[in-house]
């Protein structure tokens, strides 16, 4: 079971790199933001997997929850930021 989770973590770390192409190549700014949000969503699962591998899920759950919160607030803040630039 341990090996399985390590393998999944390796696969997820590779999957995490795919949206970075969108961050790099996005025609508009919003594509880049979407790519970064997708990276954040996958990071939550990666944090949980680390918790399972190190056998401290109860600790890493809190970190994942905090990460999810900051990811959401960051997305809202980015949307808000583009409102301000539009008005000026």
């Amino acid at each position, binding site marked *: 079971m341990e090996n399985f989770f390590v393998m*999944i973590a390796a696969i997820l770390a590779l999957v995490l790199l*795919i*949206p970075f192409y969108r961050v790099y190549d996005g025609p508009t700014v*919003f*594509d880049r933001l*979407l790519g970064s949000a997708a990276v954040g969503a996958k990071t939550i699962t990666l944090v949980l997997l680390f918790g399972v591998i190190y056998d401290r899920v109860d600790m890493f759950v809190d970190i*994942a929850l905090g990460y999810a919160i900051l990811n*959401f607030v960051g997305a809202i803040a980015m949307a808000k930021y583009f409102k301000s630039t539009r008005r000026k």
Partner: protein
Amino acid sequence: MEAIANIFTVIFVLLGAAFMLVGSIGVNRFPDFFSRAHASGKVDTLGIMLFIVGLMFYNGINLTSLKLGLIAVFVGMTSPVAAHALARRALIHGVKHWKRNEKEG
């Protein structure tokens, strides 16, 4: 009992990872911003939820599983809102949506 839980864990975690892989591909493969928002907002949400269900099976019935479920609920509540916020800002900003140029006009 342990073995059955482990089988469910493997199934759900693999499904979740597969959905997240498809979501990543979709973010790159779809032609315009709005369709990419579909891929990021739905497929990734489903992937995370399945993944967390798998980890809950691995963890058994205890308080940590409840917390894991809390993360799933939180992601399910926030991800449509975040996708909506970004898409709305893009629409106001004037991002054109892609359409198939065929006979329908």
